[in-house]
C-alpha cells in the first residue's frame, strides 16, 4: 500500500465546496476509497441520495473526474453500462487498447441494501470490472432519516418511531456484505471511515482486481444519528471497537479479519457505541433493559458468525 506521504500527494477527486453537512461520513468514505484508485482515471457513478444531490448542483460539480447519476436503485447497472461501453469502444479501436480506466459506483444503504439490491446483484453476477461502494449510515438520510434494512435493531427513525408501544426498529439488520460475498466475486470487504489505512488498503485491492469488487463502508450521519458533527469518526470507531461493525475482507472466497485489535474478549459493550447517539436514547430507559440485552446478543451473534467465517 502507498505511504501516507504518497497518498497526501494524490489529487482529491471529490473537491471541497460541496453541500454535504459538516461532519458527513459519506464524503470521508469517498475520499478514502478514491485514494485507492491511485493515479488511474476513474469514472464515478452515484445513486440518488445525499452524496449525489450535494455534489452536483447544476451548474456546479464537485467531481474532478467523470461522474454520472442516473436514479436511486440503479447505480450498479448504470456503471455496468459505462464499463461495457469502455470494453466495446476498446474492442472497436476507438479507445487505445493499453488505456486503463477504473469504474466505481457509490450508493447509500437505502440505495444499496434496499432498492438497489437487485441491480447490484446483477452487476456483481455479470462480472463487470467495477467497484461498488456502499456508504452505510443506517437509514434513508436524504429524505429525512427513514429506516432501511441497514438500520440497527432498536434505532429510532422517522418510520420506526418511538412511542408508547414502539421502541424503534424491531428487526435485525440485513447482512449485505455476506450477501455480496455469496456472489463469489473476487473481492468483498467491510471497512470504516475511522480506519482510513484499512479502508484505503481495501480500496486499493478492490480497484486492482479484475472483475467486480464490493466494499461496505461504515459512514456515520450526524444529523440522522443525533450526534454532534465532530463525533463522526469517533462514532465509527466505536462501531468497530464494539464489534458492531467487524472489519474483514473476502478475497477469492477466503474470509479474513483485517484487524486483530477487536476480539470476542475485548470488544466493548454495545452501549459504548449507542449511548452517545440520540437515535438510541430510548433504549437506556430501565424498562428497555431487556431490549438492550437482545441487541447485545444480536451484535455478538453477528460477530461470532464473521469470526467463524474467518476461521477464528
Amino acid at each position, binding site marked *: 500500500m502507498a505511504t501516507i506521504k504518497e497518498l497526501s500527494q494524490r489529487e482529491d477527486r471529490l473537491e471541497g465546496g460541496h453541500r454535504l453537512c459538516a461532519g458527513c461520513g459519506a464524503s470521508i468514505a469517498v475520499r478514502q476509497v478514491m485514494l485507492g484508485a491511485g493515479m488511474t*482515471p476513474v*469514472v464515478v*457513478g452515484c445513486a440518488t441520495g445525499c452524496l*449525489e*444531490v450535494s455534489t*452536483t*448542483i*447544476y*451548474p456546479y*460539480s464537485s*467531481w*474532478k*473526474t*467523470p*461522474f*454520472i*447519476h*442516473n*436514479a436511486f*436503485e*440503479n447505480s450498479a*447497472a*448504470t*456503471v*455496468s*453500462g*459505462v464499463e*461495457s*461501453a*469502455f*470494453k*466495446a*469502444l476498446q*474492442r*472497436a479501436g476507438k*479507445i487505445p487498447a493499453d488505456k486503463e*480506466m477504473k469504474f466505481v459506483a457509490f450508493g447509500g444503504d437505502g440505495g444499496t441494501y434496499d432498492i438497489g439490491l*437487485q*441491480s447490484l*446483484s*446483477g*452487476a456483481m*453476477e*455479470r462480472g463487470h470490472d467495477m467497484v461498488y461502494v456502499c456508504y452505510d449510515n443506517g437509514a434513508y438520510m436524504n429524505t429525512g432519516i427513514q429506516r432501511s434494512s441497514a438500520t440497527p435493531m432498536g434505532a429510532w427513525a422517522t418510520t420506526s418511531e418511538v412511542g408508547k408501544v414502539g421502541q424503534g426498529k424491531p428487526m435485525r439488520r440485513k447482512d449485505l456484505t455476506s450477501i455480496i460475498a455469496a456472489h463469489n466475486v473476487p473481492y468483498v470487504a467491510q471497512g470504516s471511515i475511522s480506519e482510513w489505512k484499512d479502508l484505503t488498503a481495501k480500496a486499493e485491492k478492490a480497484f486492482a482486481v479484475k472483475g467486480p469488487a464490493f466494499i461496505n463502508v461504515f459512514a456515520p450521519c450526524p444529523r440522522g444519528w443525533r450526534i454532534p458533527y465532530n463525533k463522526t469518526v469517533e462514532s465509527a470507531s466505536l462501531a468497530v471497537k464494539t464489534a458492531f461493525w467487524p472489519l474483514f475482507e473476502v478475497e477469492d472466497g477466503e474470509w479474513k479479519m483485517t484487524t486483530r485489535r477487536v476480539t470476542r474478549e475485548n470488544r466493548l459493550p454495545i452501549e459504548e457505541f449507542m449511548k452517545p447517539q440520540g437515535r438510541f436514547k430510548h433504549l437506556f430507559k430501565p424498562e428497555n433493559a431487556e431490549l438492550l440485552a437482545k441487541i447485545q446478543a444480536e451484535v455478538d451473534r453477528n460477530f461470532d458468525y464473521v469470526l467463524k467465517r474467518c476461521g477464528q
Partner: protein
Amino acid sequence: MATQKTLAVTGNVLVAEAMRQCAPDVMGAYPITPQTTIVEEFAKFVANGRVHTEYVTVESEHSAMSACVGASAAGARVMTATSSQGLALMWEELYIAAGMRLPIVMANANRALSAPINIHCDHSDIMGARDAGWIVLFAETAQEAYDNTIMAVRIAEHPDVMLPVMTCLDGFITTHSIDRAQIMDDETVKAFVGDYKPENALLDTDNPVSHGNFAGLGGPYFEFKRAQRNAIDRSAAVIESVGAEWSKICERPFGMVEGWGMEDAELAIVAIGSTAGNARHVARELRAQGVRVGVLKVRCFRPFPFADIAEALAGCKAVAVLDRSESFGAEGGPLFLEVRSALYDRAERPAMVNYIYGLGGSDVKLELLRQVYSDLSDLADGASTPGRLVYLGAR
C-alpha cells in the same frame, strides 16, 4: 452500390439484422415475449463474432435501460429491445434517457399490459410511455420495422435531436409472422448510419463532465424541459430528411403519415401499425364498388404530425380513429384524442368516431373494418350521430 436481398423472415429477425448492421457498441438484453427473439438473434451474432457489441445480459428491463443510459453517456452507440411489462418496468428510465438527451435506440414489440396477463398485441405499453420524451416510430410490416431501426440511429444521433428513439412493431403479428422483406447490404447500412461521435462522453477522462446533475432548488429544470420540447419539435424535420435519404437508397417511401386514397376520400380510417394493412385491403374492395374511402396510417407518433394529419383529414365527411389501447376515463383512446385535437383549428371538420379495438390481441377481422366503413357511411349521411367510443368486436 446498394444491393438488396429479398427474404422471407419475421419482423424480429429483421430488427436484429438491422441492429447488427448498425453495429451498436452496447446492447442491453433481457427476455420478454414477444420481443425475446430479437435478443436471441443478436446473441447468435455475438457468439459468432459478427459484432463487436458488448452484450449486457441484465437482470431486468429496469437495469437494461439503466445500463443503456450509462453506456450512452459513456459515449457508446446503444440499443436494446423490450415489450409490455418490460417497458412499464423501464418507465422511470425512459424519462431519464430522454432528459439526459441520450440517443438510445430501442425496439418495442407492442403487447398488452396486465392485468389480466396477456401476451398478445396491443399498444397499451407504448401509449403509457408516450409522454416520456422519446421519438416513437411505428411499423406496419417487418420491412418497416427494419427500415425504422436503421433510420432511428440517424435520427437519434442527429446533433439537432439527441433523443432516444423507440421503434414499435406489433407483437406476434409483425414480430413473429414471416413476411416478405428486403434487407440492404451491410456496407450500405454502415455508410448510411455512419460513425457515432459523442459529445461530453464520460469516457473522455481528460475532459471530465458530470451527467445527471441536480437541477432543483430554483435551478434550470424548467428550461431543460423546454430545450427537450424544442429538440423533439426539431426532430420532425430530421425524421423527414433521414426518411427521404433512406427512401432514395432503398426505394421505399417514408412519410410521417402514409395515406391511401386520401386525395378524395370521404370516409377515412386512421390507424397505427399492422391494422393499416387490413384497413387498406377493405378500402380497396370498397373503392372497387365506387365508395370514396381512404386509410391514413400514422408512422410517427412522437413528434405527432398534427399538421399532416389535419391536412389529410380536413376534407373527409367522416373519420374513424382506431385505437389499440385505452386511456381509461378519457374522451377516447390516445390516438383519437390527438387526431381530434389536430383538427380543432380547421374551419371544416369531419364527424369523428373512436373505436377501441384489438386489445390483448383480439382479432381484427376484415368484417369488423367493413363495419367501420359502413358506420362511417351512416355518419356521413346523417343517418347516425357520432358515438363517443365503440369497443369494436368485443364479445
